[in-house]
């Protein structure tokens, strides 16, 4: 078996009496989309924040590319190649699409302390940003201010900014959130092709997308992973049906 790209072992995180993460162990292997599903309040957001470095676990470790990154900041993990998209679009709304993508390229080059030549005139940043926008079908909107984009285009820009980092793994927190059927299908197609480049840990509520995309699914309930398996295994699992699929659908 190949070495996992991203791996957690026994993650525990409590908020007061609530154990939001109760010993989460999972891994993300090269070339796969690993979806994490679970009802509201299951601790998905808490889990992803520990993976991205926004909050520190009480117990357990996070390994990325074979290295223990549990103590590293969000910034350090991003520089190591862990790219994140947000559930609620986190973009510079007053800036253009291209400027947002260039920000990603700037992060990847990790040298923002340059004060004179315009960022958008620097070929190395601009090319990288444009390449990512083209792949997401946003090249025609490069000069549009983000606040004027549709919701769906903002979701695509989230992924484009992540792409500029040329990451080793993606953490995607509900990329389909708020997208209609068509938008969701479009993004599903894009993510499908993306997995060849870097594996995706996908948190998603849209079950059609999850079943269409996931190589493996883990089900998170009350801070615990109750099952991990292929789409078929999860569909058939009685525990999962009880805990989640049953009352959700």
């Amino acid at each position: 078996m190949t070495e996992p790209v991203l791996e957690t072992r026994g993650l525990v995180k409590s908020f007061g009496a609530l154990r939001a993460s109760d010993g989460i162990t999972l891994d993300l292997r090269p070339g796969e989309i690993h979806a994490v599903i679970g009802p509201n309040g299951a601790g998905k957001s808490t889990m992803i924040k520990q993976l991205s470095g926004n909050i520190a676990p009480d117990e357990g470790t996070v390994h990325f590319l074979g290295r223990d990154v549990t103590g590293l900041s969000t910034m350090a993990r991003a520089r190591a190649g862990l790219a994140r998209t947000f559930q609620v679009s986190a973009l510079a709304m007053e800036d253009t699409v291209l400027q947002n993508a260039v920000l990603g390229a700037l992060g990847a080059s990790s040298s923002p302390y340059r004060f004179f030549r315009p960022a958008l005139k620097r070929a190395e940043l601009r090319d990288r940003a444009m390449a990512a926008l083209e792949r997401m079908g946003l090249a025609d909107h490069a000069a549009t201010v983000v606040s004027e984009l549709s919701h769906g285009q903002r979701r695509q820009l989230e992924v484009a900014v992540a792409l500029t980092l040329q990451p080793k793994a993606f953490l995607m927190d509900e990329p389909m959130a708020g997208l209609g059927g068509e938008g969701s299908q479009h993004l599903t197609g894009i993510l499908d092709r993306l997995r060849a480049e870097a594996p995706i840990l996908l948190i998603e509520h849209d079950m059609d997308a999850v079943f269409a995309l996931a190589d493996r699914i883990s089900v998170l309930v009350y801070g615990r992973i109750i099952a991990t398996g292929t789409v078929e295994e999860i569909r058939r699992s009685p525990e999962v049906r009880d805990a989640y699929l049953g009352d959700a659908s």
Partner: protein
Amino acid sequence: MSRERILGAVVLLALGLVPLAAHVMGEPFTITLATRAAILALAAVGLNIALGIGGLVSLGHATFFGIGGYAMGILASHVQNYEPMFEWPFLFEGSTSMPFIWLVAVLVSALAALLIGLLALRTSGVYFIMITLAFGQMFYFFSISWSAYGGEDGLSIYVRNGFPGLNTLDPIQFFGLCYAVLCLVLLGAHLLARSPFGLALGAARQSPDRVQAVGLDPKRLRLVGFVISGAITGLAGALFADLNRFVSPTMFSWQTSGEIMVFIILGGVGRLFGPVVGAAVFVMLEHFLGDMSEFWHIWLGLLLLAVVLFARGGLVGLIAGREKAHD
């Protein structure tokens, strides 16, 4: 050319031509007013980097303005009084050379901004405002109690400091110098806003989570922005002291911080020429309305209210419209 650039060119040209006309007509007081406007604009260009790009509402920029002023006052007073500033490790008698004074003003205010920023930037929102205000007040009361350099009465400097090749006692030449500094710093601010640093600092204001997620540190970006901002306002302070040939604790007062911020809000937050328009309007109001009534601030208040309510982009936004996305 965008309307904003045309407006900027017109404002800069007017600011340059009015004193020239006044020089020809022999009205030195108008030149002094224009010099005052240019220097106050420079102070606000400094704050506009922290406030406009970085979103850092600093109510303590008088700290840097005052440091610049006292850098000039202290260095020149030693020359004036023939008392060496220190004798160890080498004899230093102070200085009346503007380039040297500017260097000291910029370095000391940058250092102060670094130390204040390290503490204040751990907070945000109203706490950041209060901490920067508190530092301003500390410097204010310290300058009042520092009797070696005039204490409450301030320091009068009888000589005007020199600049190689210029007669700085001639109002029009001193104006030209201040105007040149303002134009250079505006050029720098223009470049900075579009540079990788400006892009990242602006993004850190709009979406710090995003900035972190691409591997950049919003706190460090803000700190560097705050230091650059403080250094520019410090330079303005040194020029302001030279204009008045007088330094006093008033330069450190929170009213001064407030006024610098008023220039920006009046002219347009984050707009390149906002500080210039704001400072020019302020100086004109102060002069014309101040002649009529000592309560002229009432009218300033009404104008400010109107701008905040009806023209969020300030006067620049009102005239030039919404900011075009940078190219």
